């Protein structure tokens, strides 16, 4: 694969998920990557180290993940699209500054190629154990966006989408994949540069003297000035007013700020959330799955159909904000929901919350192997007429 001096690849390529993620980032204009090697995300860093200098970008290997995420925030505030990639242990180290990104509304993309945890766990084995951490890992109340690719093609497509969402809403956006999706090789169709949708953060239209870096427009997102543009803005992780002034003892400012940080995502969730609906029209039982587990789920649903079981699949492309409406809609139509996850029960909690009376069957999987279609089919088999 010859990539030298090419801003972007196009056409059909055979590559692994980590490489596809790096190529998606480059295609959408990411020009800064700071990271620290960790299995199974290292190939993203390696690809970025080779590719970014070719497109006049910056790759830097920092001393740890605390530094990596901090450098990403610095680069983003200097006006560059920036990202980092890691796995569980590194993800844990990033949590405090993910909160700073939320609080200072710094766009950035954080890729977590999930492996088995807790702690060092199983570095080379897949997992979906960090989905709750992505949502709640930093302290305080906030909302973020998280996407869950289930193929190498989606590693490319959803990395682009993650940047676009992050720039639109000025919010850290996560790409949550796992060891299998990261290391798996598949064919990827890369469209021409022209046909790729690229969203950039909106810039201030007011003169510097009137500019409030945290003064929102109607969509609750403030226009973003960057370093060196003459706005001389101040940003802080402290609770602040619309002008970035610390307000550490005002209940009102705290209320308004936290509310806006949450509502800018909640109120726009219809625009953010993406799901994939398969054979749900007449379904009597449905699988709700995301990422690696959704691949076996799709196969199980097809097999079930062949056996006369009216099964369908709701694949979550977005896990955060949680697709409440979409899951609820399916839950109301079916007799039961089946949720396979490579963890000990995380997204299933959300599914149960919105499914209300509808029974939810949880299929946990830990360790080396993903769910087998037959295991999911077994659960669906109970609904054979």
């Amino acid at each position, binding site marked *: 694969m010859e990539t*030298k*001096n090419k801003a972007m690849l196009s056409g059909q390529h055979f590559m692994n998920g980590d490489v596809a993620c790096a190529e998606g980032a480059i295609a959408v204009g990411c*020009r*800064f990557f*700071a990271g620290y090697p960790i299995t199974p995300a290292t190939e993203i860093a390696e690809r970025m180290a080779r590719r970014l*200098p*070719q497109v*006049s970008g*910056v790759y*830097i290997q*920092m*001393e*740890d993940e*605390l*530094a*990596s995420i*901090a*450098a*990403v*925030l*610095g*680069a*983003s*505030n*200097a*006006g*560059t699209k*920036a990202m980092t990639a890691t796995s569980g242990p590194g993800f844990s180290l990033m949590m*405090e*500054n993910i*909160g*700073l990104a939320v609080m*200072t509304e710094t766009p950035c993309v954080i890729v977590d190629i999930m492996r088995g945890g807790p702690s060092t766990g199983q570095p080379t084995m897949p997992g979906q154990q960090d989905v709750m951490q992505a949502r709640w890992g930093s302290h305080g109340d906030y909302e973020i966006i998280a996407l869950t690719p289930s193929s190498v093609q989606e590693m490319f497509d959803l990395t682009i989408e993650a940047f676009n969402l992050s720039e639109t809403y000025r919010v850290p956006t996560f790409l949550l994949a796992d060891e299998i999706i990261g290391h798996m090789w598949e064919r990827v169709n890369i469209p021409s540069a022209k046909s790729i949708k690229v969203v950039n953060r909106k810039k201030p239209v007011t003169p510097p003297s009137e500019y409030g870096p945290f003064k929102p427009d109607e969509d609750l997102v403030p226009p973003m000035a*960057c*370093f*060196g*543009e*003459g*706005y*001389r*803005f*101040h*940003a*802080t*992780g*402290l609770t602040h007013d619309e002008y970035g*002034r*610390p307000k550490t003892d005002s209940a009102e400012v705290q209320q308004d700020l936290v509310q806006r940080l949450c509502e800018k995502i909640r109120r726009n969730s219809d625009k953010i959330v993406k799901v994939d609906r398969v054979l749900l029209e007449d379904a009597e039982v449905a699988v709700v799955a995301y990422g690696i587990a959704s691949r076996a789920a799709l196969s199980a649903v097809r097999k079930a159909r062949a056996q006369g079981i009216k099964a369908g699949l709701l694949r979550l492309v977005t896990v955060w904000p949680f697709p409440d409406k979409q899951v609820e809609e399916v839950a109301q139509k079916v007799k039961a929901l089946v949720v396979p996850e490579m963890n000990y029960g995380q997204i299933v909690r959300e599914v149960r919350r919105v499914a209300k009376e509808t029974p939810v069957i949880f299929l946990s999987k830990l360790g080396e192997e993903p769910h087998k279609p037959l295991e999911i089919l077994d659960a669906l088999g109970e609904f054979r007429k």
Partner: protein
Amino acid sequence: MTKKQLEMKHPYERFLRKERMPHIWCEGCGNGIILNCFARALDELDIDLNNVVVVSGIGCIGRISGYVNADSFHTTHGRPIAFATGAKLAKPELKVVVISGDGDLFAIGGNHFIHAARRNVDIKVICANNFVYGMTGGQYGPTTPLEAWTTTTPYGNIEQAFNLVHLAAASGAVYVARWTALHVRRLTESIKKALQKEGFSFVEVISQCPEIYGRHNKMKTAISMMKWFKEASEVRNFSDPAKADISPSRIIVGEFVDVEKPSYGRLLREMKAKLQTE
């Protein structure tokens, strides 16, 4: 303050966000002197403020980023250098200055300091060393002298202190200086030098904290702390930083390192240029 004093224009007003005043620092604190010297350095060099970014961590001195009238970012505790590294590499035309405390830069953030110095990232780091964690009410830190009383060394400190200029020099900084808050002229000159130098430059400012440190260590007022600086400090330019440990009787100040070495940013640009022509 009288009305007349309030109405007087400060000579460095254009460097300050006036609406943020009054600042949070205690009476007698050295942080105001550091801010003043920084403003004076910018003024004397006639640097375009639109190109300056001030990055700070958390602590009393960390609030400085909110007071300067430039682009500024108040990051998390310990991370200003890593943040500044990203900002500088993403936009090399910026002058990126980190101003933070001894705890922020050398305890929780120590790893970032040594690695940024090793890489020779073109950022300027000014450390307000007040020997203590001021913001949290006076606990000991990596620069607290032996035997000092702090709220977490109630029987006297038994930890050895870092010699910051030695650490900076050993880590690869191209410019290293130490002054006390009493040496305003020489401190300003060192800040100016740091601002003009290519590469990782470090200026340590020994700063008085009468309220939270001095009071408990036989120096009740700012004046008595500064008297200590005056009596103990010894200017020894380009002396061995390894021998510049601070003791009650001796604070060696001066410039310790001033060398030329290509910065990380320069090597990066050269690498990219080579790739373009290949």
